[in-house]
Structures are given as structure tokens and as C-alpha cells.
């Protein structure tokens, strides 16, 4: 692969899971960059009460719509279930490729079509301004923006995700190398299995909801029009029935990546593997379908649903707590080395702790009366999704970098990027909790009724500048590593996972010279034991 010259045609028609993965990575980083630019524009706008960089609130609303949709649909889901899933799954289970390589190529190009369509937001005269939640009847009747854009972006990326789900679930069930069982599968593989199970169950619900929006708006139906017997509350239920599980579609693979990083850099076995897999990942999957109502406690619903879902939502703390216990347990008696990926994983532990704990109030319908729709909510989900998950994605790319490129990034740049990141995110987002609890509403272009928050808004904007700097350093570190990085060995971290031990960096098409055969006591986390000869597999690769 490295010997051949770059060929655009080869990339476009590729069915190699690693190249498909890289296509996802490029798309998702581009979406992240654009969403980040939108965020910086919004932060600039909010530095003063009243108009700051634009006098047009609609411009701000379009930035915000794009930021939310791009972060979730364009960046996080594709980075995790697109790039990392594609790159890791066949390598970690000892397969030559995914089960349906052409379907895989279809998935990535559907996703790219979604990205291109989303980019047209900045070209068309009537960009959508309906927020990533797209509530009717605003979106289906009143918005001057183009709601069909939203519908089609969601549908394209949704189809892409369902095709990916079928592909990866089949791959994981059917194509594991001899010796890889349900008891020694990488944790990341479990997280992908859980995430795609959620996608397959719940994406169709979102697809229906957003399709009905466009039916109402363009075809004259009345699904959400109260005057004609419809109900906008139905949309809110359908939307969150998908969009709460979507949080776990994003979170679980991110936790999976963190587990891989932590295991490698502590050179330690996973603490209580079965608890992590069944209690943590599958416990979350089990609960995820019965907690959507906590997004709409103030929308009106029968009391018994409220009371039931207060408890189910609070119960999420059990599987998520078990995932944390597993991570901390893996640190115990480990041999921790603080390379850049491990720094990001350590950052994750603290960011996710803050994000998780600030989620507890959101489950409580009474407490929710004050915090719904405020910066408290946005603070919470930025800590969980934006910050924790981005730690996992960026840390995960640093981690996979030598495998992906065959080269090593510069450690000093990596560490600098982490330090800027961890300072920047806390300066930016911690003030949101303080503003939120005192009533600052989200999705506000202006806040003349809350002038007391100007100082905290400015602090937050200052933090955003630090985050932007950290992302610049990340970009420099990766480009520098790609162009001028030193050649890396096949297993620079000393990991025992298959993608490091059984193939070269970068892996050739087909991944392995022959399908690895593993003995029953093989484990990707087989650390701390005496190395028995004969159980080590052929190293001649």
C-alpha cells in the first residue's frame, strides 16, 4: 500500500475497510472543523449583550443549527461508528475485511452525500434554522428555512448508519478468527456491537419523525398541526426516543476506545471484564429505550410516565457507574505510562465524571423545572458528548496514529495539545453550569434580559480561544507526524491486542498474511502473566 502512488480512483472505488475508515475520518474531521468555526462565531457573538458580530439573529440561528447537526451527525457518529469501527473491527477480530465490503463503501458515500448536502446550507438562500431538534410546528409550518435539507441529511446519514450496522454486526458475529470468543473480544468491539444495535433499533424512528416534518411542510399533511388534529408532542416523543439512545451510540464506542487506551498504557488486564461488558455496555442498551421522556418532562405527559422515567433515567447511573468502576479498576496495580493517548484518557475520566454527575439532576422531573432549556443542559451534554467523547476521539487518533500511518507523531506536540485542551474546555464550559442554574437559556442570540451573565460569557469565549489553539496544535501534530514523523515500529506501545501484534504498520490490504489462529487463553489484555513460548503466535509478519 505504501509503495503504490496515490490514486484518486483507488480511493473512490475502494472497498478496503481501512480506506473506508480513513474516508470517514476525513469527513468527520472536516465536519468537526466547520462545527468548531460555527461555535467560535457564536462565542464571539455572545461576548457582549446586544449585537456583537452580526445584527441578524437568523445568522446566529443557522450557525447553531449547523453546529449541532454537524457535531452529532457529521462528526461524532461517523468518527466513532465510521472511522474507528471500520479501522479496528476487522483488525481486532483477525478478519481480512468486513462482511460486506461493497455495502461498506455504499455507507461511506451515503455519509459523504449527507455532508455535501449539509454544506449547501451555506449556499442556498433559505438555510434551515430549526435547530438540530427540528421541533414542529415551527419546522413544519412556520420556519422560513428549508426543512427538507434537514430531513434529507438525516435520512442519508441514517441509511448510511443502518447499512453500517448490519455490516458490522454480521462481521463481529461471523468473522472472528479462530480462538476469539465472546470472552476475549476487545472491549471496543463490544462497544461497537452495542452502539450498532442501538442504531438499528432506533434510527428508523428518527427517520420517520423527520420525514413527517417534510410531509407536513411540503405535501400538506397534518401530522403535527394541532388545528387539523395533529400533535407536535408526538414529534418530541419520536425524536427523543431516538436521540437519547443516540447519546449512547456516541458514548459507548468512545468509552470502548478509552478502555483500549487504558489497557495498553497501564499494560493491565481489564478489571472485571464481564461486568464491563454485560453490566456496563449491555445494561446501557437495555435502559436506553425507556428514558427518552426526561428530555420532555415539561412538555406534558401522563404522570405515571414521568414517575417511571424518573427512575429509569436515574438508573442509567448504574451501567455508566459500572463502566467507570471498570476503568478505575484497570488503573489499579497498572503500569501507567503517560503518553499522549493516556493523557487524553485520563482527561476523559475527569470530564466524564463531571458530565455524568451533572446529568443526575436532569433525570429529576421537579429539578428539571429550573434547568430545562438552559445552559445547565448544554453544559452537561458538552461535558459528556463534546468533551469526553472528543477526548476519546482525539486521544484515539493519537493512539492509532502509528498503525494508521506507520509513523510517529511528536510527543511534545501531543502533550501540548492535551494541556491546552483540558484548560480550554473547562474554562469554556464550566461557567455554563453557573449561568444555567441561574436561568440563562440556551439558543439565545442575545441576552439583554440577563445582562448579569456577560462576564461569564466572556470567560467562556476566552476558553473557546484556548480550545481553538489546542485544536490547531492537534492539527500540526498530526500533519507533522504524517509528513515528517519518524518511522514507527509495528507495535510501539507494546500492546497485546491483535492489531498491534499480528500485522505491520500500516497493515496491507487483507490485513494479515494469514488469518491468525489463537489459543483459548489468548486475550488482547494478556498482561502480567508469564510469557509461555508456543502460545505466542508467528511473529514473522
Amino acid at each position, binding site marked *: 500500500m505504501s509503495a503504490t502512488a496515490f490514486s484518486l480512483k483507488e480511493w473512490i472505488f475502494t472497498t478496503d475497510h481501512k480506506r473506508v475508515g480513513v474516508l470517514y475520518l476525513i469527513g468527520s474531521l472536516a465536519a468537526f472543523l466547520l462545527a468548531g468555526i460555527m461555535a467560535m462565531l457564536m462565542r464571539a457573538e455572545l461576548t457582549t449583550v446586544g449585537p456583537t458580530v452580526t445584527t441578524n439573529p437568523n445568522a446566529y440561528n443557522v450557525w447553531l443549527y449547523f453546529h449541532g447537526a454537524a457535531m452529532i451527525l457529521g462528526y461524532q457518529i461517523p468518527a466513532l461508528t465510521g472511522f474507528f469501527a471500520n479501522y479496528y473491527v476487522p483488525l481486532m477480530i483477525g478478519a481480512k475485511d468486513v462482511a460486506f465490503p461493497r455495502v461498506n463503501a455504499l455507507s461511506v458515500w451515503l455519509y459523504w452525500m449527507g455532508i455535501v448536502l449539509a454544506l449547501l446550507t451555506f449556499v442556498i438562500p433559505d438555510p434551515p434554522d430549526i435547530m438540530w431538534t427540528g421541533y414542529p410546528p415551527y419546522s413544519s409550518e412556520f420556519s422560513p428555512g428549508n426543512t427538507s435539507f434537514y430531513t434529507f441529511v438525516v435520512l442519508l446519514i441514517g441509511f448510511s448508519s443502518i447499512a453500517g450496522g448490519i455490516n458490522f454486526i454480521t462481521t463481529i458475529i461471523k468473522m472472528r478468527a479462530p480462538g476469539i470468543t465472546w470472552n476475549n473480544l476487545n472491549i471496543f468491539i463490544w462497544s461497537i456491537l452495542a452502539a450498532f444495535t442501538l442504531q438499528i433499533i432506533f434510527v428508523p424512528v428518527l427517520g420517520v419523525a423527520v420525514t413527517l416534518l417534510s410531509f407536513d411542510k411540503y405535501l400538506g399533511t397534518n401530522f403535527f398541526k394541532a388545528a387539523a388534529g395533529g400533535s407536535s408532542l408526538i414529534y418530541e416523543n419520536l425524536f427523543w426516543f431516538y436521540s437519547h439512545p443516540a447519546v449512547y451510540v456516541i458514548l459507548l464506542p468512545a468509552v470502548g476506545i478509552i478502555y483500549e487506551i487504558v489497557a495498553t498504557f497501564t499494560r493491565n*488486564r481489564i478489571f472485571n471484564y464481564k461486568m464491563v461488558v454485560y453490566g456496563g455496555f449491555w445494561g446501557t442498551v437495555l435502559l436506553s429505550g425507556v428514558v427518552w421522556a426526561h428530555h420532555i418532562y415539561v412538555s406534558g405527559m401522563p404522570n405515571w410516565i414521568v414517575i417511571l422515567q424518573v427512575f429509569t433515567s436515574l438508573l442509567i447511573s448504574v451501567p455508566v457507574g459500572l463502566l467507570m468502576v471498570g476503568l478505575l479498576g484497570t488503573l489499579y*496495580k497498572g503500569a501507567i505510562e503517560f503518553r499522549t493517548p493516556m493523557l487524553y484518557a485520563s482527561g476523559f475520566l475527569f470530564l466524564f465524571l463531571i458530565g455524568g454527575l451533572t446529568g443526575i439532576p436532569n433525570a429529576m422531573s421537579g429539578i428539571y423545572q*429550573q434547568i430545562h432549556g438552559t445552559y445547565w443542559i448544554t453544559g452537561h451534554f458538552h461535558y459528556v458528548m463534546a468533551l469526553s467523547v472528543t477526548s476519546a476521539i482525539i486521544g484515539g487518533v493519537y493512539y492509532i496514529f502509528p498503525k494508521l500511518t506507520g509513523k510517529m507523531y511528536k510527543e511534545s506536540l501531543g502533550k501540548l495539545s492535551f494541556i491546552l485542551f483540558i484548560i480550554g474546555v473547562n474554562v469554556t464550559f464550566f461557567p455554563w453550569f453557573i449561568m444555567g442554574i441561574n436561568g440563562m437559556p440556551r439558543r439565545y442570540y442575545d441576552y439583554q434580559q440577563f445582562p448579569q451573565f456577560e462576564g461569564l460569557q466572556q470567560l467562556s469565549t476566552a476558553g473557546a480561544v484556548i480550545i481553538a489553539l489546542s485544536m490547531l496544535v492537534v492539527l500540526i501534530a498530526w500533519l507533522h507526524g504524517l509528513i515528517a514523523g519518524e518511522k514507527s515500529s509495528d507495535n510501539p506501545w507494546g500492546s497485546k491486542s491483535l492489531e498491534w501484534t499480528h500485522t505491520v504498520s500500516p497493515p496491507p490490504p487483507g490485513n494479515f498474511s494469514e488469518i491468525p489462529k489463537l489459543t483459548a487463553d489468548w486475550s488482547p489484555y494478556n498482561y502480567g502473566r508469564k510469557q509461555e513460548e508456543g502460545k505466542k503466535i508467528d511473529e514473522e509478519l
Partner: protein
Amino acid sequence: MRCKHYFASIIVSLSLSFLFINNLYAKGIADPAEGWNHLWYELMVDIIIIGVIFAVLTLYLLLRYRRKQPDEEGQGPELSPLAALGWALIPTFIFLADDIFLGAKNFELWNKYRNIPENAYAINLESAMWSWEFNYPEGIKATNELRVPAGEPIMLKMTSRDVVHNLFIPEYKVKWEIRPGTMDTIWFYPKKTGEYVMTCVEFCGVLHSSMHGKVIVMQKDEFSKWIETEKNKIK
């Protein structure tokens, strides 16, 4: 087994204390905002305790188990089936106990929000892009200014003319979605006179962030005078 008894007793005692507290609050008009403040304080104590325990533990583990030799490997324990089960169940029961405790506490607060006092002063609210229109039982109309008497529970009967809005009054820790085609009710209990912000917290179009107004809490007699003058204006 001993653990199970221990946690069962925690759950039972928590439920009992909840019932006890619930009885204390049962008489008179329970102000949701006060209940909110009270529960928020308890919640913060709860969260901060958990947070500090986890943060200190994480920091300790990260610093304590750093690699000393380059070829060193972790020596994490291999758990026996019983230990593995214990390590899953004990945290589960701890989290579960906290969840049940918080859920029960929330139930109590939620009831305060949902049980509207029978003598509440009812005002109609119709929201529209981007203003609030109030209709008093005396026939008075007001836009973006909600005048209410201090010391009386106030109920709003709300509907929307166009899109979904959401009325939020931070001072009274109350908000509710307002949608076309339905009539939803909320209530709050103003005690101190003064002016307080009310604002929309459901995205409703280009001027969403400008959709705000004031709750003006007046002395009871001043309020009655205002009602009289306004009534005369209508005639």
C-alpha cells in the same frame, strides 16, 4: 449475603425517611420554588460527595501506579467468579440506593409542582411569535407584563397561537411548554414584591431570544387598585 442485608436496610430506611418528610410537608400550601431550593441543595451535596470520592480515587490511582521500568507490566488481580459478582453487585447497589433516594425526593417535589392550590388566581396566557398575552379573569389584557398580587398562588392557563414556546420564570423555578391546540397549566407562589424576568426557552424562530417580559409582583391592595383602574379603562 451480609452486603445485601445492609443495602436492603439502607433502602428501607431511606423510604421511611422519605415518607416522614413527605408528611411534614403535607399541610398548607407547599411552595415548589422552596422545595426546589431545598432539594437542589441536597442534590449538590450528594453529587459533590460522589464526585470528590471518584476524583480523589482517580487521581490517586493515576499517580500511584506509574510505570517504573520500561518492561513493567500491570499486575491487576484476576477476580474469582464470586469476587467478580461482588464487584458488580456492590457498586450496583450503592448507585441504586442513591437513585431510589433521589427518585423518591423528586416525587415529593414533583407533586408540589403538579398539585395546583384550589384557591389559585387563574390568568390565561396566549403566546405567539414573539410575545406573551395575558387575559385576567376581570377581562383585562396585558402584553409581556404579568402583574400579580404577592402572597397568592398564581395559576397560568396557557396555549399558543403558533409554534411551541416555553414560559420560564427563573425566580419561581418554573417552566412549561406552551403548544397550539392544548391548554396546559402551571402555578407559582410569589411572595416578595418586585420585578422578575420571564422568558421563552423553546426555540421559536428569529426573535426567540427577544421573547421576554416581566412578572411584576405587587402588594395585594395595590394590585386590587390596578385591577380597578384597568377595568374602568375597558368600560
